[in-house]
């Protein structure tokens, strides 16, 4: 680690503009596919900058354009800026872009679009994109930074450095001293005589001079904040009930709405009778929306109650009536016609298998709801001067276009105000709730309509994680794993997700084999084949996407072969490992857990798994005990290679959360459909892991690599296979299908 960035002016030029009483620093926007009338009346320079730092009479404000769904990106972005700016997080405000300042917010929307839409063509009307672009979109979006952290890591520090040096130049000009004699600390420039001038005082002067772009980023040895434990900036608000999430926002004159959608996912509505609902207390309107009915009242509960009184005639969905039908479609996909990719084909699989009786097994992973604890909601107001949208979203730019289409207003006049999200896990990469709110709002012009999904609507109308199946054939020789031929079948997540944005996709979908085809194990004969199942239930990106099922498939298959070879799961992985970074991760968890054997004692078992996903090698060891009440998960050890740990506290929290997320769903969660209707409607049937079931978790971040990575997703995929391995070691029961509570009880 520790590469010092040198960024040329050509790649990133930080500019400065005057704002009322001060100055703003940010990057110049090169790509502006759309002119924005909101920028009319502003100076050319003001309109052309995407700000990160604003200094005015109110103080220093750090602007953090990436939306936060709980993973702490507001905090991390602020820390990167503060590091070079020489301010501390306790003396600045952090602003994701206040809705009250449309100019800033619009600029932020542009910035967010740059992060999210790597190809400007993606938003163009020709709605066909290659899957590589879509892949990048997903990689950027769902990780909250797995692929953008390297970019932001330099970009934001550089913005802070340019601001600092420009403020120093302003101080030098004002005091008539050489810049070289100036220092900075806690938002002040220190003059040679020891006196101090605040950034706020210097801001108006800084706005009049050329920004100092010739700056070198500090060596990691000089970092004050990065790599050290920090107090996350949203902690106090979230512990005092003062954090405003999208569901909490209130706009003057607002009404409360909900929707009643065809219980059969994406099925049509043939007609409805709202005569009883319309007479209920507080109900203001019952209106049609796509696939259902919108119920508008003066209180959310009254809307929920009235929704129960609406009678509707529902149409059918197109996908299979039973889960057997879904599984059959997957099972039928392992044929050459359906082959989507074969990115890895080492050695000679067919010869090896022909020469010995192969180990064969089949694995299954179910549909899973995202189920963030904040049910989805959106407020939309269709006004005379455009449309305002207040919501938590990861795709503001798509949403802007979709709302424009529904309301018939130019997308430049659709203002999307993005809110802190009470979780997402990929849920808010979809925007059906915003579209439905817009459909209602356009029928109630001038009135802000807040649409809140009931938990039941949220869970049953989620676009879940892909259902998937894998088949293994493999061989062992002389106590070693010799051959792994793994086929993985699933519908295309990317195609399903993009179809709802009116985009078609082309080429193979790498998510079908993500977390499997590129694993750091040199099995002599190794073939990983992706098979694309025709669309079943509509699906979407779920925390770690393809790797969420494939990390299980690959490691479970490897464990099966390790057992056949009579080898130790840890030792055989170490022997096969052909990547030095991955090896260190495995060695770390082996050491942390003091691994000697998969069977540390009577009724106890340990499992190990390693998955490389989103560029991060993450290894986990899970230990369980087979108790009279069922399997108890005692402990987990985790190591991940991320290049640089920006904030050790947030890192620790995200890794533990990822492990728990992986364990929870593997234990007892699935979404099943009967006649197109989700059978699980609320947390009683999609419970996850409760407090008393939570193991102790020990975490280590490794910094041997040169690239900086995000950590939101990589801890998820290895959790399920490590748990399955532990249960096998403790009980002899080999688990090949999630959720595991179909086969074993959990204490």
């Amino acid at each position, binding site marked *: 680690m520790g590469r010092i960035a040198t960024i040329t002016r050509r790649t990133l030029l930080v500019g400065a503009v005057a704002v009322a009483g001060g100055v703003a620093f940010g990057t110049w926007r090169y790509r502006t596919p759309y002119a924005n009338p909101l920028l009319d009346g502003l100076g050319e320079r003001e309109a052309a900058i995407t700000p990160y730092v604003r200094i005015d009479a109110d103080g220093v404000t750090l602007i953090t354009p990436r939306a936060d*769904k*709980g*993973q*702490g990106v507001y905090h991390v972005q602020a820390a990167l800026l503060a590091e070079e700016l020489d301010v501390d997080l306790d003396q600045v405000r952090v602003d994701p872009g206040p809705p009250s300042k449309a100019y800033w917010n619009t600029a932020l929307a542009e910035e967010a679009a740059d992060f999210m839409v790597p190809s400007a063509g993606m938003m163009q009307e020709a709605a066909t994109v290659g899957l590589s672009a879509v892949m990048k979109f997903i990689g950027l979006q769902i990780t909250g930074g797995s692929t953008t952290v390297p970019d932001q890591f330099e970009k934001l520090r550089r913005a802070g450095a340019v601001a600092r040096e420009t403020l120093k130049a302003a101080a030098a000009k004002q005091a008539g001293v050489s810049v070289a004699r100036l220092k900075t600390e806690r938002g002040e420039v220190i003059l040679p005589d020891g006196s101090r001038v605040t950034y706020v005082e210097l801001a108006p002067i800084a706005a009049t001079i050329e920004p100092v772009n010739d700056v070198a980023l500090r060596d990691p040895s000089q970092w004050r904040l990065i790599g050290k434990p920090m*107090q*996350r900036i*949203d*902690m*106090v*608000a979230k*512990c*005092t*009930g*003062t*954090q*405003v999430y999208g*569901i*909490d926002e*209130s706009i003057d004159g607002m009404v409360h709405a909900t929707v009643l959608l065809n219980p059969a996912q994406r099925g049509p509505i043939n007609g409805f009778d709202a005569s009883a609902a319309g007479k209920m207390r507080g109900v203001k309107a019952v209106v049609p929306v796509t696939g259902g009915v919108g119920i508008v009242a003066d*209180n*959310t*509960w*009254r809307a*929920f109650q009235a929704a129960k009184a609406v009678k509707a005639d529902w149409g059918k969905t197109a996908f299979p009536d039973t889960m057997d039908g879904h599984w059959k479609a997957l099972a039928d996909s392992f044929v050459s016609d359906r082959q989507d990719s074969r990115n890895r084909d080492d050695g000679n699989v067919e010869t090896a298998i022909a020469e010995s009786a192969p180990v064969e097994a089949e694995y299954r992973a179910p549909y899973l709801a995202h*189920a*963030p*604890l*904040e*049910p989805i909601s959106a407020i939309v107001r269709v006004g005379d001067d455009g449309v305002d949208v207040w919501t938590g979203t990861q795709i503001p730019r798509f949403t802007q276009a979709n709302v424009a289409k529904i309301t018939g207003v130019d997308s430049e006049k659709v203002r999307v105000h993005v809110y*802190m*999200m*009470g*979780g*997402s*896990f990929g849920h808010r990469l979809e925007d059906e709730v915003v579209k439905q709110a817009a459909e209602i709002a356009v029928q109630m012009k001038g009135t802000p309509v807040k649409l*809140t999904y*009931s*938990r*039941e609507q949220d869970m049953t109308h989620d676009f879940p994680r892909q259902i998937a199946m894998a088949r293994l054939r493999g061989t062992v020789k002389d106590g070693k794993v010799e051959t792994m031929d793994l086929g993985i079948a699933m519908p295309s997540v990317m195609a399903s997700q993009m179809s709802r944005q009116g985009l078609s996709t082309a080429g193979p979908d790498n998510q079908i084999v993500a977390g499997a085809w590129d694993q750091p194990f040199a099995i002599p004969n190794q073939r990983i084949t992706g098979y694309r199942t025709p669309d079943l239930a509509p699906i979407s990106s779920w925390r770690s996407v393809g790797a969420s099922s494939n990390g299980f498939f690959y490691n479970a298959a490897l464990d099966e072969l390790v057992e056949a070879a009579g080898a130790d799961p840890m030792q055989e992985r170490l022997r096969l490992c052909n990547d030095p970074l991955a090896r260190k991760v495995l060695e770390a968890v082996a050491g942390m857990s003091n691994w000697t054997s998969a069977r540390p004692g009577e009724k106890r078992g340990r499992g190990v798994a390693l998955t490389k996903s989103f560029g991060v090698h993450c290894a986990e060891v899970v230990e369980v005990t087979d108790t009279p009440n069922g399997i108890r998960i005692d402990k987990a050890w985790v190591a991940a290679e991320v290049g640089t740990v920006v904030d050790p506290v*947030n890192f620790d*929290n*995200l890794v*533990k*959360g*990822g*492990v*728990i*997320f992986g364990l*929870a769903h593997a234990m007892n969660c699935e979404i099943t459909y009967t006649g197109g209707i989700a059978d699980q409607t*609320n*947390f009683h049937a999609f419970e*996850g*892991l*409760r*407090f*008393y*079931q*939570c193991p*102790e*978790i020990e975490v280590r971040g490794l910094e041997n690599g040169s690239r900086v990575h995000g950590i939101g997703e990589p801890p998820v995929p290895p959790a399920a296979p490590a748990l399955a391995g532990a249960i096998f070691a403790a009980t002899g029961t080999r688990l090949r299908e999630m959720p595991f509570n179909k086969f074993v009880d959990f204490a």
Partner: protein
Amino acid sequence: MQLTVNGKTVEVDVEPDMPLLWVLRDELGLTGTKYGCGIAQCGACTVHVGGMPVRACQMAAADVDGDIVTIEGLGTPEALHAVQAAWIEHQVVQCGYCQSGQIMAAAALLDSNPEPSDEDIDAVMSANLCRCGTYPRIREAVKTAATKLQGA
């Protein structure tokens, strides 16, 4: 009907069966109390009524028989309750949406049981779901809060 919320008496005109949750959120604008499931499975709506922890999604407005304390009344950013202070010290939150309920549940536990065992903490806190997986830090924070409250 009249309710006392965070020390203030308020008049609300609602159906007797409207859950307290929606009275707080939509009638009184106290949005610190969260809607998560509506069926007492997640605990995000936990408030205190007459000093006892209740799931506000399950308590009808007409059944409220004591003073109500919500997360906003437990403590404020300027004057934190010991449980909130412990949560901040341990940096418990991720998305934070469940934490109002977690904190209210923990505060009620420590009110009635100042020295809870691990099993006591398990029994109470297992009624609250966290989708982000902050349970390990919640456990640490409950213990810290217990120590602080005892020293107070």
